[in-house]
């Protein structure tokens, strides 16, 4: 009895902590979204109140959508994020498989070297990266961003995935080898499906910093036709006047695609977990 009551109390405490955290985390998003639907005056008068009949306004969204390039920015962000993500997952999983599956000289050193990037922020190398991009003529291309983000995402992805791949049964891979499957088929057909939850985790962790990044778009691809959504939204922030309606609307819109991607991956994540539980 005692322990039941205790665990009940404990679960209330846990939920209270989680709920508090959720509120704190979601609050800024909530403020951004409600204010994006208000007139400029209403935003400043009472930033925390919901839009009502008097203060409701589409003006922010109209400004953003009329600014013709907005869809292009969107498209750029989406291209960069999706392509980088795909490359990070593909190469990360392949490197993780090699590290966890094959015994070769320097295996451990290689693993450490590849994981080193987790501790060293890639921005420290910005100047060298810029020089490299200038030399190779990649400045103001999405390719430059994709390359940098792929490099940025790989260390964590290799680290997490190789840990998971070590847990995949050796017998299963060996059964595949005896049946004559190539190493590629063993990797793609047997191993990858079993580490899908880990892939989803890596995808979420990789995707969000890429989508939100302002630094590299500003430095490597500030041209009009390669601007990402975060950079594009900056046009509304002036040195003296800031068009708050437009900024807030742009930010609200920018949440959408990343939310969709997140929902896709988190469903994978849950499906992976339950599939494992039944097996």
């Amino acid at each position: 009895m005692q322990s039941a009551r205790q665990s009940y109390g404990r679960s209330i405490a846990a939920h209270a902590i989680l709920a508090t955290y959720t509120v704190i985390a979601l609050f800024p998003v909530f403020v951004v979204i409600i204010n994006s639907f208000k007139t400029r005056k209403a935003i400043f008068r009472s930033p925390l109140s919901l839009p009502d009949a008097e203060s409701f306004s589409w003006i922010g969204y109209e400004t953003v959508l009329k600014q013709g390039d907005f869809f292009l920015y969107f498209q750029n962000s989406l291209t960069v994020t999706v392509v980088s993500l795909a490359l990070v997952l593909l190469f990360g999983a392949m490197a993780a498989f090699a590290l966890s599956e094959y015994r070769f000289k320097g295996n451990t050193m290689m693993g450490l070297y590849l994981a080193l990037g987790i501790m060293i922020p890639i921005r420290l190398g910005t100047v060298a990266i810029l020089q490299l991009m200038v030399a190779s003529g990649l400045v103001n291309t999405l390719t430059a961003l994709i390359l940098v983000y792929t490099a940025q995402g790989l260390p964590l992805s290799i680290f997490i995935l190789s840990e998971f791949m070590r847990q995949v049964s050796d017998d299963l891979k060996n059964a595949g080898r005896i049946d004559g499957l190539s190493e590629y088929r063993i990797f793609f057909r047997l191993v990858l499906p079993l580490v899908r939850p880990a892939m989803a985790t890596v995808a979420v962790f990789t995707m969000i910093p890429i989508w939100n990044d302002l630094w590299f778009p500003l430095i490597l691809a500030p041209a009009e036709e390669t601007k990402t959504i975060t950079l594009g939204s900056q046009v509304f922030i002036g040195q003296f006047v800031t068009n708050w309606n437009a900024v807030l609307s742009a930010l609200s819109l920018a949440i959408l695609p990343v939310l969709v991607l997140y929902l896709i991956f988190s469903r994978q994540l849950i499906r992976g977990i339950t599939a494992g539980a039944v097996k």
Partner: protein
Amino acid sequence: MGSLKLQGIHKSFGSVDVLKGIDLEVNDGEFVIFVGPSGCGKSTLLRTIAGLEDTTSGSIEIDGRLVNNTPPSERGIAMVFQTYALYPHLTVRDNMSLGLKQAKRPAAEIKDSVSTASSMLSLDELLDRRPAELSGGQRQRVAIGRAIVRKPDLFLFDEPLSNLDAALRVNTRLEIAALHRRLEATMIYVTHDQVEAMTLGDRIVVLHDGIVEQVGSPMELYNSPANKFVAGFIGSPQMNFIDAAALDRSDAKTIGIRPEHIQPNKKSGDVKGRVSHVEHLGGDTNLYLETENAGLISIRLFGEHQFEIDATLFAKFDDKRVYRFGDDDKTLQ
């Protein structure tokens, strides 16, 4: 068809020598058991034969063909794993046919092969299920079926029964024995369970620390073990080992006597002791004597017997069944 010849097989992982020079010949159609304690290198040896591990040195011939550099799928072998290792995303039918599909065999032949194997193992009703929908015993039968479908020259089993519960283990053991008679294929079967080894094998290879201790038929190993390790490993309960000095004998270092070759006696015998524990197994009774100078001695009696705990008894050895081991633990003749 499926003979196997191993010569001087060495295998090390880094600086650890796991296999230290294995020589072995297996004849066509034989059922050979590799038995030994956990960690002695049985699985490593089996994986080396399958081509899943490279040897550090030594040669492997299957069917008279040197296969050191042949990939597993072309060695004419099939393997059944302890953890079943079925492909989780494929149905039972696809699990069984994948190997032949990879080898680009005609569809009719694959179908034929799968249906023969599935009727042999009564898997017909399960063909369209996935591994997740099967019980442990069914999964292991599918794994065996997958091996049969490949029509290999050489079957390799790596502790296929150790994940099954006791009743299922006996059934599957009988099934594997029947399979061997029916297919007349060469089979190598790894186990750490000496009962499985004794009941299944034509010949048993006892491994210990990466070397072969003895090769022989089950009764050869039981009746004339080459050394103390084999004597202790084969037979249950374990053979009693007694320091020869404790018995005032100078013709050996250690004396060995199996529990079933000792009789309790109220008046006289080789050693005197006190009954410390009695186990009633129904068919057998195991009696444990705490002796004055020879340590704990186990005695196995046929049928039901009653003993008082703490009663004083003598143990009388069957002299013809006493084994003598020398300083190097080898059996003395």
